């Protein structure tokens, strides 16, 4: 089934239209919430509908593997075209983004108390930016969305965050900005190189892939791309913006940051980094292995030392994204499918963890672990979900993270046993901090007398949905892996 209207553009710009519509509701916060939820739900419905599109038909004019494609002239002088495309990988990412945005809207229903319409407008604008990154096939358009994502997140952290929110927001922005600017130099250099070789100047990914870049230059260009993406991943040692940004952001901000923003870095490496510079990417593989393995262990190690729940989960994100990086570095079909699965799984699981930390924070206004203890008896439903998502994060078989981690380790072991061995040790460390977190919050003696209401209907719906997705992906990952099969085969054989 094909669509005869520009569905990809609709996917990208519907949330932005929602954000603009929300500005009209700046006097009525309660209506604004419902309008935001309606737009987020509509976006999710739309992306689910796209799933029904035939993923096997070859589209004329589209690059191989893309079953939805849009192309229009934009700035002819520079050869910039408005090119969007969806293949299996982007479809999975788009589904994840729209799903997590609905979750984020629901999670901040009660938590945000001031300037509510602006908050939800920025949330929806973020979704537009993220979807733009996942769907662009033109390097200039990709760069535009990549940078445009930063502005709403900057405001979300700076206005509604807590702690050192302005410091964290500015740090997040500047860190990412400088990486992106260096990537811009690389993009322009690649563009000029292609132009002098082929005679026609273009920013289109499909055509730039065919540029023959001299080896030395390709190392620099790929290095600039990798630098920008590594900041977003985040890969050790470029991760220092993440704990601050995650900890000081509001709950929905953390959810979107962890579940979606980090994935844009990984996705872009797979979509742009490796296809454009294959030899340079393979030359950088040892560095990527080292950074990934060290990140897995380091993230887990430092997470164990945290006293703030949110900071602990933030460092656990560093650790989990190390698995994704490991899978990408191995660049074999199994490892890459594991990495992409892990991206989805981490999005769901860590999004759920941040949502739960936010729920606990709303109840006691404290994110310190020492505030809690023995809450299993008081809030059994909340505690059950907390245990479930933490076990998922630890990689318990039957839950989703296990699938991703297993595939990554199997795929990497064939290519580089040393790296896989190092990652195994990281899993042990992951268990240590997860069990410590669960034990200190859920079990044991209570440290302070707390009044904890159990989950409300809204919170329960959110957690239940996330749990169902979690278990489903853990038990039946087949459909998602099938979607990923064809694009991964095309990427790894190239």
């Amino acid at each position, binding site marked *: 089934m094909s669509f005869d209207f520009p569905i990809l553009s609709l996917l990208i710009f519907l949330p932005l239209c929602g954000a603009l519509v929300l500005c009209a509701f700046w006097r009525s916060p309660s209506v604004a919430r419902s309008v935001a939820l309606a737009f987020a739900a509509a976006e999710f419905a739309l992306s689910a509908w796209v799933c029904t599109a035939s993923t096997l038909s070859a589209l004329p004019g589209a690059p191989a593997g893309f079953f939805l494609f849009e192309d229009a002239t934009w700035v002819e*002088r*520079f050869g910039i075209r408005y090119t969007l495309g969806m293949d299996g990988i982007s479809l999975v990412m788009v589904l994840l983004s729209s799903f997590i945005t609905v979750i984020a809207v629901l999670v901040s229903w009660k938590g945000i108390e001031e*300037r509510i319409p602006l908050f939800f407008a920025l949330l929806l604008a973020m979704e537009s930016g993220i979807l733009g990154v996942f769907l662009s096939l033109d390097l200039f358009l990709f760069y535009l969305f990549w940078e445009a994502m930063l502005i709403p997140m900057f405001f979300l952290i700076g*206005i509604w965050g807590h702690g050192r929110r302005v410091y964290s927001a*500015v740090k997040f922005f500047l860190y990412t*900005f400088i990486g992106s*600017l260096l990537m811009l*130099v690389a993009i*322009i250099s690649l563009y*000029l190189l292609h132009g002098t070789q082929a005679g026609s100047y273009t920013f289109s990914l499909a055509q730039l892939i065919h540029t023959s870049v001299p080896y030395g230059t390709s190392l620099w260009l790929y290095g600039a791309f990798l630098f920008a993406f590594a900041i977003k991943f985040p890969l050790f040692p470029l991760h220092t913006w993440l704990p601050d940004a995650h900890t000081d952001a509001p709950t929905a901000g953390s959810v979107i940051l962890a579940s979606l923003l980090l994935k844009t870095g990984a996705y872009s490496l797979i979509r742009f980094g490796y296809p454009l510079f294959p030899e340079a990417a393979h030359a950088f593989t040892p560095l990527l292995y080292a950074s990934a393995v060290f990140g897995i262990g380091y993230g887990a190690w430092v997470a164990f030392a945290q006293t703030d729940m949110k900071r602990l989960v933030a460092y656990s994100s560093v650790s989990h994204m190390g698995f994704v990086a490991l899978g990408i570095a191995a660049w074999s079909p199994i490892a890459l499918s594991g990495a992409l699965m892990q991206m989805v799984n981490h999005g769901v699981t860590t999004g759920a963890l941040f949502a739960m930390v936010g729920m606990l924070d709303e109840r006691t206004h404290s994110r310190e672990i020492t505030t809690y203890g023995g809450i299993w008896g008081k809030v059994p439903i909340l505690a059950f979900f907390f245990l479930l998502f933490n076990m998922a994060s630890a990689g318990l078989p039957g839950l989703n993270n296990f699938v991703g981690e297993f595939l990554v380790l199997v795929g990497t072991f064939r290519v580089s046993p040393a790296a896989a061995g190092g990652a195994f040790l990281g899993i042990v460390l992951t268990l240590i901090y997860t069990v410590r977190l669960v034990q200190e919050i859920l079990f044991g003696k209570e440290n302070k007398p707390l009044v904890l209401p159990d989950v409300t209907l809204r919170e329960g719906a959110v957690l239940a949905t996330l749990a169902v997705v979690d278990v489903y992906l853990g038990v039946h990952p087949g459909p998602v892996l099938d979607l990923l099969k064809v694009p991964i085969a095309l990427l790894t054989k190239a």
Partner: protein
Amino acid sequence: MTYSDAISLMPIIIAACAALLVLLAGPFLPGSMTSAIAVAASVTAGAFAACTTPESAPALPGLAFTPLAHYLIPVFCLSAALTLMLSHGYNERRAIKGEEYPATVLFSLFAMCVLPCATNLLTLFLALESIAFAFYIMVSIDLGRAESGEAGLKYLLMGAVAAALTAFGFSLIYAGSGTLNLSAAIAAPGNRAIISAGWGLVVIGIAFKLSLVPAHLWTPDVYQGAPAPVAAYLSTASKVAAAAVLLMLLGFAPPMGELHVPLYLLSLLSMVIGNLAALLQKNIKRMLAYSSIAHMGYLTLAILTGSKEGYAAVLLYAAVYTVMNLAAFGAIASLSTDEERSQVSDYSGVGYSAPFRGGVLALSMLALAGIPPTAGFIGKFFIFYAAIRGGELTLAIIGIISAAASAYFYLKVVVHLYMRPAEVDSPKPSNSAESFALCCASVAIIAIGVFPAPLLRLVDAVLQ
């Protein structure tokens, strides 16, 4: 002079007649009427220039409606019109009375319209210095503040030195080439040593006007002291005029070998020192002054490449920079009451107490930082593209790193607007002329950012 010549010189004629009309009839008309006449005149002049096709033959001895004039005169007219609209409210609040102000703006617009039409060195110099004269008056026009007079005096003294150097440079070029005609003076071999010496002095003089380091010392003080709409006009139109002079003298050909090192150093120092110094500023107009210096550094980088892409980048950046700075200074002007909000911290919480003006200020800050999808990003992209294509990779990387660092002080304003609680009184409502001007500027920023193709076509038409 034929009918078509008269039509092609209409912008100049309109500006001059309107200036005289405002000056003569001003005492008898209410203030808003004189402003309205002035705005109408600027808009009409711009419309005429945009609709007339350029010809190469001189309409008058020394004046030809070149393609450059076809592009730049609408930019100047837009700048003047928006400044007049912004000053309308500002001058009432600051008790700057009288018709001298709109008349001076129109006189400067007249000189700005003459400048890109000039075909000989003397007309070029006269136009350049007439612009400066008008600005000496406008900078010091706020009689209620001593800083305004001080700024005017500093600008006058520095500008006089610059004018002297430029005049000497022009006369040396004349002596070396034997003709005042612009195209002939560039092409004629003549006496290379004298022409080079003349060029050197001209570059110093233009560096003053463009406030490139190390000829930038007047800029922060003058921007701080001048009334905010005048600072807007000064930072945009006079810089664009100076850049236009440089382009016309270079004849859109690569600069000769001797100019490479001076332009390289000017660009490098301006980008780095401009951005670094802005990081330390607490006064918002000084910060914007240093940011102007950095932006002129980027402009010089594009001129340095000497390629067609570089000159196209300069022309595009001229238009983009104009709307960005007009929005920034305009928002500052409309947010001030009888005391200007001079410190960045005075803008705390203004994003919520004055959402539209705070939003325009935030948008202009993001545009100046070069963040997509604003016009500032397109401008920076084009400049760095031209630089890398022209072979200046090192300078482009230095420029990009300093642009990344510059995001910090632009973000500082946005942080104060939205993320800090209000400290001083909330701003009073703005009047409709100011809001309209700010609206025009912000729409232009976003429109050029998302659909740059039309403007790029115009720029390419100039360079044919």
